[in-house]
C-alpha cells in the first residue's frame, strides 16, 4: 500500500511536469507544477482507496490542488494559472469520456448514459472545488508573501 502510494506520487509528479512542458510552463516552476498535480492526485487516490465515490474524491482532489496552487502563487509570486493548469490534468475525466464512448459504440446505451452523467458530475465536482478555493479572500494568503518579498529571480 505504502509502496503503491509512493509510485502513484512519483508517476503523477512526472506526468504533470510533462503537461506543464506541453503548455510552455517556465522551467523554474516545473517542480512546483508537478508538486501541485501530485498532491491533487494523492488526495484523490487516497480518497478512492478509502472507499469514497469518484465524484467526491475529485472534489477533494480539486480542493487540495487549488489550495496549494494559491499558496504557491503567493510564495513563488507567479500567476495561479501556472500551477492550476498542469495540476488539474490528473483529475480531468479523460477516462470518463472514453468509457462513455466505448459503451455507446458497443450499443450499451444505459451504461453510456451512466458513464456520461458520471463524467459531467466529475467535471462539476472539479469546478466546484476550484471555485470554492478561488473565492477565499486574498488576505488569507497574504501573510505567506511577507518573507518572500523578493521572489525567485526571473529566467530568460
Amino acid at each position, binding site marked *: 500500500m505504502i509502496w503503491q502510494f509512493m509510485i*502513484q506520487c512519483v*508517476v*503523477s509528479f*512526472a*506526468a504533470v*511536469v*510533462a*503537461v*506543464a*512542458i*506541453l*503548455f*510552455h*510552463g*517556465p522551467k523554474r*516552476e516545473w517542480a512546483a507544477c508537478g508538486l501541485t498535480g501530485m498532491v491533487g*492526485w494523492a488526495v484523490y487516490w487516497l480518497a478512492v482507496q478509502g472507499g469514497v465515490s469518484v465524484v467526491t474524491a475529485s472534489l477533494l482532489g480539486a480542493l487540495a490542488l487549488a489550495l496549494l496552487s494559491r499558496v504557491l502563487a503567493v510564495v513563488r*509570486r*507567479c*500567476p495561479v*494559472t*501556472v500551477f*492550476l*493548469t498542469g495540476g*488539474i*490534468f*490528473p483529475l*480531468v*475525466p*479523460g*477516462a470518463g*469520456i*472514453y*468509457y*462513455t*464512448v*466505448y459503451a*455507446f*459504440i*458497443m450499443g450499451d446505451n444505459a451504461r453510456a448514459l451512466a458513464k456520461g452523467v458520471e*463524467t459531467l458530475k466529475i*467535471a462539476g465536482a*472539479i*469546478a466546484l472545488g*476550484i*471555485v470554492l478555493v*478561488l*473565492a477565499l479572500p486574498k488576505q488569507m494568503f497574504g501573510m505567506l508573501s511577507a518573507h518572500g518579498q523578493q521572489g525567485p529571480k*526571473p529566467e530568460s
Partner: protein
Amino acid sequence: MSQQDILEFTLEAGRVLLANGGEIFRVQDTMQRIAHSYGAENFHVYVLTNGLFASLKGDEGAFSGEVRSVNVTNIHLKRIVAVNELSRAIERGGVPLEEAFARLRAIETMPGWPAWLRVLACGVGAAGFAYLYGGTPLDALAALLAGFALEPLRMFLARRGTNRFIENLLSSAFVAAVSVAVVQLMNLAGAACSIDKVIIGGIIALVPGIALTNGVRDIAGCDYLSGTIRGIEALLIGVAIALGVGFVLGLSAAVPGVIAV
C-alpha cells in the same frame, strides 16, 4: 507619452495575456493596473473570451476607445508569467512606455519549448496517465508510443490554424488508431495490453482541462458570459474527442481479426 499610447499599450498587454490563456479577471486587472500606473484617469475596460474593449479619457477631455479581437487562444504559460512580471515592474514605476512596448514585443515572440521536448513530454504524459488510470507498465509503454505519435500531428494542425473542433477530432482519432495498432502488435508479440488504458493515456493531451479550469475561473470571477463560452468549448472538445475515438473503435470492432476492443 500621450494618452493614446497608454491606451494602445494597455490593450496590447491585455491582448497578449488573453491570447496566451490568461483568464478574464487577470486580463482586466492587469490592464487596469498598467493604465493606473501610467497615470491614466478614467480608464475603462471590458474583456470577453475573444475580445477586448477599452476607453480612456484624453487630456482635452475627449474619450478615445479601441477594440482588439482575439480569435485563437494557445496556452503559453511562460508568456503569461512574463506579462505578469512586466506589469509588476510597471507598477513599481520606472518603466518608460517605450521600453514597456519593446518588452511586450519580446514577450509576444518568446519561443515555447522546442518540438523534441514537447514530443517527449507528450509521450511521458500519456504513459504516466495510462499508468495512473490503472494501466500496467506495458500499457504505459504503448501509451508512450501513442503520445510520441500525437504531438507532431498536433503541432502540424496548430501551424495550419485548423479549427479547434476538427483538430481534436482528427487528433483523437489518430491517437486511437495508433493505440489500436500498437496494442495489436504487442498482443501478437505475446505482451498483453489493454486498449482502454492506452487510449485514455493517449488522449490526455487533448482533454479540455484548461478550457474547463478557465471557464470555472471566469464564472468564479462573475464573468458569466466568458465562462459560458469556455464551458461550451470544453464540452465541444469533449464531444470531438469522443467522436474521434468512437469512430476508430467502431471501425476496429467491425474489422475481423482485430482484437476485441
